[in-house]
């Protein structure tokens, strides 16, 4: 690699790592103040857990010598022989392995045991993530080899995390007072700060996934900026029309939805297509967050509505808007004459959803058997910060 590319990938890795604290704040602002530290802790601790799991075994399961398109071999256990450019690729990918389970934490906010989270994340980072990453990112992974494309992780990161969140929510049950009580975000400025950090870091996520400081990276950078902006507009316009007021949380949510939706296609589509993808994602994700009330599952911070739905929208629309003119690594999508690729993208979405839902649900049951999943009723009432961590988020009176 050239020094320019090394510089860019080092920066991108740092940016993607920074997204997880950003996510922690994004989520942390949305919970009630009695649970803010638990929310932050679940995210920060996920960095620690996944870093170790990925270093020791996860990386090789994802990117070691292929076994039947399903999983990587053990050649790189404990980073044996991983050096130079390989080491850089390893650490860049590590940051994706970190944020993916961290995304799930928003769905189970305000009620899941910390010990259960630690165990679930460890197992999930050990088994589910490396497999799906292998399928979508490794040259011989079955999805990639078959022709499916996922530029920066629509399938591997967002659909994967979103559907796992749904499975975990089913195993866990709703918060006490769900649908009856007011459960307002305790600090939207914190959430907006998190949004800013996420947006900033996402440039590393998407443009870094070009794996070079080249024209593809530039193109991915531009589509990222556009889709995020348009989706924020889309969401806000939709709610302005429906509820009569534009909201700050709506703008933030829309931006994240747009970032999610452009992820699978960032380096594969044109700026004008990014406008379309952003608009559709902003609008659909706005609709999707109300599903939880209709169907009664308590996805506390809308991981399903934003990441699963946004990921699906983006992965499927990549099948529509992909242009080999932009990037020769992708076939043309529906709009440019290729129907085959569209079909494969749809299959890939369904395959990842099916696999990860089942695997995550099983893991949740295993964890339930070992540690239990939920805190006690009075712990939930008192708040997880005091009951699980013996800490208080804010003390303004001293």
């Amino acid at each position: 690699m050239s020094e320019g590319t090394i510089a860019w990938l080092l920066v991108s890795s740092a940016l993607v790592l920074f997204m997880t604290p950003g996510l922690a704040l994004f989520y942390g602002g949305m919970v009630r103040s009695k649970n803010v530290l638990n929310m932050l802790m679940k995210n920060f601790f996920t960095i620690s857990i996944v870093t170790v799991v990925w270093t020791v075994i996860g990386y090789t399961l994802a990117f070691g010598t292929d076994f039947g398109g399903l999983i990587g071999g053990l050649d790189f256990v404990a980073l044996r022989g991983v050096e130079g450019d390989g080491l850089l690729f390893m650490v860049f990918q590590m940051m994706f392995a970190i944020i993916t389970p961290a995304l799930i934490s928003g769905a189970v906010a305000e009620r899941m045991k910390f010990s259960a989270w630690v165990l679930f994340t460890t197992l999930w980072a050990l088994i589910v993530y490396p497999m799906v990453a292998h399928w979508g990112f490794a040259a011989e992974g079955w999805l990639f080899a078959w022709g499916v494309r996922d530029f920066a992780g629509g399938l591997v990161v967002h659909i994967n995390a979103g559907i796992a969140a749904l499975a975990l929510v089913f195993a866990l049950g709703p918060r006490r007072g769900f649908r009856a009580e007011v459960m307002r975000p305790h600090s939207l400025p914190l959430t907006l700060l998190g949004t800013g950090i996420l947006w900033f870091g996402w440039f590393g996520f998407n443009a870094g996934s070009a794996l070079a400081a080249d024209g593809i990276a530039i193109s991915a950078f531009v589509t990222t900026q556009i889709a995020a902006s348009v989706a924020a507009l889309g969401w806000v316009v939709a709610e302005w029309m429906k509820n009569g007021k534009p909201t700050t949380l709506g703008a933030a949510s829309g931006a994240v939805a747009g970032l999610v939706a452009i992820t699978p296609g960032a380096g594969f589509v044109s700026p004008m297509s990014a406008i379309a993808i952003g608009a559709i994602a902003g609008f659909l994700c706005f609709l999707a967050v109300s599903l939880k009330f209709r169907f009664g599952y308590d996805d506390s911070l809308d991981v399903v509505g934003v990441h699963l739905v946004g990921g699906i929208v983006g992965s499927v629309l990549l099948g529509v808007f992909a242009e080999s003119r932009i990037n020769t690594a992708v076939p043309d999508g529906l709009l440019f004459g290729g129907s085959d690729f569209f079909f494969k993208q749809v299959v890939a979405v369904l395959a990842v959803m099916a696999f990860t839902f089942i695997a995550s649900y099983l893991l949740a049951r295993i964890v339930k058997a070992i540690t239990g999943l939920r805190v006690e009723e009075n712990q939930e009432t008192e708040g997880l910060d005091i009951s699980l961590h013996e800490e208080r988020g804010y003390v303004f009176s001293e």
Partner: protein
Amino acid sequence: MKLIVAYVKPFKLDEIKDALREVGVTGMSVGEIRGFGRQSGQTEVYRGAEYKVEFVPKTRIEVAVGDDDVERVVAAIETAARTGDIGDGKIIVLPIEEILRIRTGERGAEAI
């Protein structure tokens, strides 16, 4: 007229509000306080140092009522606020000499 003051567990506020509304109460005022009592406070730990924080977050409710409503209102709060555990709190009744609605200048029972 009496002023009923209650110190209760914060998460009980919604139920108490509903109970009060059912017995016809149309207004109340609510503040955050820290309570000290039989219910022991929480241990908090920061970098290994333990702090015994003896104060527990509580909610303080004030309701001004006519003399005839006192018992009903006290009973409503009592029932809605009770969990049976230590720390459920207290209800106090204070005499009011005068009460006035600012908007209209009404005084006495009408002002409640």
